């Protein structure tokens, strides 16, 4: 290996690592606020990548059916709850917000798909279709389990991932798609060919992380989320509804997942089940941060990207094995630095 190749591998690793870092942050956020290990994060990556790719082909992406169907289920659940509570006055609002909005987005997508609406609008439309699926997933799959243990929620995550991946197969089929790069430009920096797409990825990740930081530091909602993450019961006592915090966390996580999918889809061919692997690499980073520290998680995820890039050079067929085996030394390190648990048993 010479210096040029090494630099090229670093660039590749940093590009992927930036996406893993973004995902790791979203995973930490969801875990801190809801105690959910958000495995379906990966499905949002696939959904967004494939939705964008399908839109670029001038076709209606299958995710609009999920949006409409999910909206209908949520509307049904909310309406039943409202009727049981004797609040039939809420029904019109439920119909508009839970059913009307998703249907409107779906209709817009169906209208816009065959027309050449330009890359920026395609990106916006992709986000508009995929992001609402996040809070819908929270409402349908997780809300009924709000008081369950971390491990039960984890099993529920696996179940949700099963459903989403299976549905992904139904709506997108087994074929992969690679979307058009936002820009094909290349810059020569010294010996290095820097693709504009890489710059887009790293730049967007940085912007996104800064935005998250500002959101948590400066906005009321962000502070409410942090409060919930630190002390769930305390937050509820001062009037932050757990359900609101959960919904918000899922909106953010779905948005980050969708953005990652959009960013990575011009680099890698996306299949309906690609997302799981990408999402799990975010997890490896998150674990390095002890599922608690954001900067460490981002660094860890960057490390995963670099490891992957160098592994694919030295032993390309064993790339995935090397990346996922990396979790063992990482956990060993965590287990050595973690103080002996002052055991407080989980409640039955």
């Amino acid at each position, binding site marked *: 290996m010479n210096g040029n190749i090494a630099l090229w591998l670093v660039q590749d690793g940093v590009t992927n690592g930036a996406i893993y870092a973004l995902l790791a942050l979203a995973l930490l956020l969801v875990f801190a606020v809801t105690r959910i290990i958000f495995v379906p994060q990966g499905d949002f990556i696939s959904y967004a990548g494939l939705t964008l790719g399908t839109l670029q082909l001038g076709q209606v992406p299958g995710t609009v059916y999920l949006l409409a169907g999910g909206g209908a289920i949520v509307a049904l659940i909310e309406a039943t709850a409202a009727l049981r509570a004797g609040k039939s006055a809420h029904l019109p609002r439920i119909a508009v917000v839970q059913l009307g909005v998703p249907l409107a987005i779906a209709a817009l997508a169906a209208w816009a798909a065959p027309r050449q609406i330009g890359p920026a609008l395609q990106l916006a439309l992709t986000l508009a279709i995929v992001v609402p699926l996040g809070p819908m997933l929270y409402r349908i799959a997780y809300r009924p389990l709000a008081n369950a243990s971390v491990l*039960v929620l984890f099993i529920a995550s696996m179940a949700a991932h099963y459903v989403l*991946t299976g549905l992904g197969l139904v709506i997108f089929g087994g074929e992969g798609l690679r979307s058009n790069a936002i820009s094909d430009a290349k810059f020569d920096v010294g010996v290095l060919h820097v693709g504009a797409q890489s710059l887009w990825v790293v730049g967007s990740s940085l912007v996104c992380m800064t935005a998250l930081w500002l959101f948590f530091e400066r906005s009321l909602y962000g502070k409410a989320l942090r409060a919930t993450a630190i002390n769930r019961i305390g937050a509820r006592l001062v009037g932050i509804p757990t359900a609101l915090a959960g919904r918000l966390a899922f909106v953010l996580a779905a948005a980050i997942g969708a953005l990652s999918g959009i960013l990575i889809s011009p680099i890698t061919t996306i299949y309906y089940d690609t997302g799981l692997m990408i999402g799990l690499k975010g997890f490896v980073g998150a674990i390095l941060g002890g599922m608690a520290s954001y900067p460490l998680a981002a660094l860890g995820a960057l490390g995963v990207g670099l490891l992957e890039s160098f592994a694919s050079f030295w032993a390309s067929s064993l790339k995935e094995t090397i990346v996922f085996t990396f979790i063992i030394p990482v956990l060993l390190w965590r*287990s050595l630095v973690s103080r002996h648990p002052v055991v407080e048993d989980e409640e039955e």
Partner: protein
Amino acid sequence: MSRSQRVAAACLLALVAAPLVLPEFYVTLLDYIGLATLVVLGLVVMTGVAGIVSFGQQAFVGIAAYTTAGLTTLAGWSPWGGLAASLACVAACALLIGLVTLRLSGHYLSIATIAWGIAIYYLFGNLPQLGQYSGIDNLPAVTIPGFAFDTGRKSYVLIWAITAAALLAARNLLESRTGRAIRALRFRSVMAESCGVDTSALKLVIFVYAALLAGIAGWLHAHYLRFVSPHAFGVNAGIDYLFMAVIGGASQVWGAVVGAGIMTVLKEWLKDILPKLFQHTGNYETIVFGALMLLLLHRTRDGLAPAFARWLPPRAAGELPREAPAPPRRERPAAGTPLLQVQGLAKRFGGLVAVKDLSFSLGAGEILGLIGPNGAGKSTVFNLVSGTLAADGGSVHLLGERIDGLPSRAIARRGLARTFQHVNLVSHMSVLDNVALGAHLRGNKGSAAAMLRADRDEEARLLAEAARQIERVGLAEHTLAAAGSLPLGQQRVVEIARALAADPVLLLLDEPAAGLRYGEKRALADLLRRLRAEGLTILLVEHDMEFVMGLVDRLVVMDFGEKLAQGLPLEIQRDPAVIEAYLGGME
């Protein structure tokens, strides 16, 4: 013959008759159910009972299958040699993974199992020596002298003989000394440690046990299909196994058969109809499995086995243990020997000083009361002395031996038993089993002996001892009731019985009288006096002054983490500093 024996006999008969009467297709299906049951059984014990969630069991199945495939086809080993090597490989991997992850919170282990399951899958798929994605074929069938298990029907015998044996062994394990400790792991590990259970070691044992069951299944799988390929050991296989365990539920080992049976049959059926529906091949069944799993979790955490159990005759509530001699007893120190010496004990939680420079001592055969207003640090002292918390300073000696810094299980071994302020019982376990957990250190038979039922004599002695302690505290009529079904006051008394079952020299009681009615309090005071007369030493934290004053020999009063006063009950009642602390002073 009881009804449950008749059901068991009918099941056995059906199991034996199945390969003789069923068509090939169904025998194959039953073979697959048997293989899955073995893996799921490990998960029922590990996940359902002990609360350790693994999505990576397929990796252990795969490691075993590939080990035996490689050795039998490339190196010419016999399948039995392959079995030994497979299990050794699986055990080594499980030990490594377990050691690395089991000290961390549960979800680390779960994520790690997914990650390393993927790693193994890609390893199998990419190593040219292992045939990459096309796998290894032409494995030999398992043979015994004069017989080869070389067809689906013949393999059925092997698969189900092993599966049935594993089911029985698992049931035996859960109904044993180790089994009680396993059942306490999930929610009550602090209590289990205080009874002398090494919970980390036990978790590791269970993890390796479940991996070995998966390994046996992998070995059977390889020689049954005579072929291995990575596809059987992908991530989804691991998720399927866990779902099977959740479907079956954790209440009984038979849940493994229920879960494996339902999922295997459903999968077969869905794989048949769904591709026709979508006019394309693919894993569409995951949608159905995922949705059903969510619905199940939304409605119950107990799985479907209880629903099936409703059709079976009701289970007897268990039997009262037979008479048996007491397990070995500890030597009692002579009355008045210095038993517990606490010197300069200190504990901080961040900036809060919970206990500061506290010293007191106890002689054998004495009851010492530790009192003080709420938040005075009494329970912290308890946790420091019993080893549940580590002290920041000072020393604690028990019978002249320094015990601060030791884990609570080591202190329990030296003769200290305790109760908890917040009742700490395994609520779905019977009072008898809960109390027998207290006698954990008076037995030494391990998991292997339990599975083979070589522990029955010792087990009878432990249970008889538990029954005697339950009778001693006056709860004999509740012996077989679930501990969680008793009123809170009586649950506290069960805690005392559990502590007594340990045959302690020093008993630490944390607010034993809270929630008891007047008559029950008197009975409890009488019991404690009797225990003192028998030479037991008691350290008591209590709020109820009437209860304390008539009972204890001496009192230590704490306030803001420090000793305020000590002396005879009558002196303490007149001590102005104590009155100030309790009543806010008298003008």
